[in-house]
């Protein structure tokens, strides 16, 4: 009789299998092609020159700030796109494994449910985030080449998007254990739009009060975490501590992962 595998070995095997499945799926291939198209579009738009004449203004500085704002917008759009792709694939990533017998055959082996669900979640997330990170790196590279913006804030922002996307993956899987896929996607889309809308308003100074204010100051920081990381690109500092949105993104990702873990432990495989 063989020795039981370590959790790390089982995780590695299941992670690789999930990643392979994700790559095999047409959705991810379509997303990769869409990414390529979007990247080409970003490249074209980024090549525009500012053509503003303002008497008595430092035009070079103004041009650099416009470049920074453009790059920041590009980051925001790609971050949202990464979250959407992650939610799309994760919303059926776990249920597919339950329906096609993968969960049953795997959990009949000496593999814990925690390892199984973590491998599914991280495997799917890594496939989506790899594409998102490549696209974000392209935006950062263009910003560095054209406007002299430094790489360090961009790398922090890519990390923030990755953290937030992992939370989105866990949340999508957790929701899919309660709802069918279409309501799951509709719910996540509504939640994402609401959270990002509130965060965007807060970035422009409309903090809000009540639960809107709570989302702005204590929410998952899906948009504000990468924007806060990119603050060094801007001449005017953003309100609040730049570390707080990153902390929130990490804390919410951990909370969603914990929720998923607890819920999956109680899932009954009885079909």
């Amino acid at each position, binding site marked *: *009789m*063989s*020795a*039981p*595998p*370590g959790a790390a*070995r*089982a995780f*590695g*095997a*299941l992670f690789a*299998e999930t990643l392979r*499945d994700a790559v*095999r799926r047409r959705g991810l291939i379509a997303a990769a092609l869409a990414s390529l198209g979007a990247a080409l579009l970003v490249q074209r738009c980024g090549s525009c020159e500012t053509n503003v004449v303002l008497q008595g203004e430092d035009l070079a500085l103004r041009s650099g700030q416009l470049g920074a704002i453009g790059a920041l917008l590009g980051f925001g759009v790609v971050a949202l796109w990464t979250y959407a792709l992650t939610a799309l694939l994760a919303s059926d990533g776990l249920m597919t494994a339950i*329906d*096609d*017998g*993968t969960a*049953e*055959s*795997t*959990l*009949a*082996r*000496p*593999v*814990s*449910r925690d390892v199984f669900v973590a491998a599914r979640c991280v495997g799917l997330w890594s496939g989506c985030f790899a594409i998102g990170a490549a696209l974000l790196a392209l935006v950062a590279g263009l910003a560095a080449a054209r406007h002299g913006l430094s790489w360090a804030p961009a790398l922090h922002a890519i990390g923030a998007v990755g953290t937030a996307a992992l939370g989105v993956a866990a949340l999508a899987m957790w929701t899919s254990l309660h709802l069918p896929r279409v309501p799951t996607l509709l719910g996540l889309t509504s939640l994402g739009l609401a959270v990002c809308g509130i965060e965007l308003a807060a970035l422009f100074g409309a903090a809000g009060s009540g639960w809107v204010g709570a989302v702005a100051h204590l929410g998952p920081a899906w948009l504000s975490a990468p924007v806060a990381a990119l603050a060094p690109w801007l001449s005017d500092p953003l309100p609040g501590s730049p570390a707080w949105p990153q902390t929130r993104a990490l804390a919410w990702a951990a909370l969603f992962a914990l929720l998923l873990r607890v819920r999956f*432990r109680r899932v*009954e*495989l*009885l*079909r």
Partner: protein
Amino acid sequence: MSDAAAIAWRDASKRYAGRTALDALRLEIPRGSACGLLGPNGAGKTTALRLALGFAPPSGGEVWLQGHAPAEPAARVGLGFLPERLRLPEHATPERWLTLHARLIGLPRDEATDAIRVALERTGVADRAHQRIGELSKGLRQRLGFASALLGAPSLLVLDEPASGLDPLGLRDARGWIEAERARGATVLISSHQLSEVERSCDRVAILDRGRLVAEGALAALLRPGESLEDAFVRLVRP
């Protein structure tokens, strides 16, 4: 529970939506035995197996698998399982699927290669090892299910309707695999409607009806003189 038990249900019950699928089942499968779990449709056989494998917790009572709570990974070390409705990933190849399972049971890479080759050859799937599972016939899929269950020389083999999808040659082969595992010292638990197969392969039987255990023990002790297992089954579930 008895240390000699590979699986033990101690007053294990399972209820869903007001229906009792399993009612205070008290049963032990001794290590090294070959036990048939019998019963009409809806008797609770599959539910009993799924509680034992940790796929669902009991609503009441306890279940022990190889001396552990079924949810613990250690309980499933050395376990080979063939489910009733075998579902396999259509896009994978038999070799890749078995490679994943060899890693999950902790076989070292060099041993895994040999074990996979042996399992594929033994179950007659070797010449389809690189074909997509989705292209395999039902019988070949069932053989692949056996290959997975037999991978790594399991100490406990749990087979839920193992004859499903097998032709007479497949049935004969399956009987041979089960006998070989028994001869090796493995514990075998078979849930099946094929009473003749159970009679040939098992030395013990447990009969469930409407979620309750109605008979259990050595096959020889359960049968009356001149009675087949089918006769005994009908006598016990339709008194």
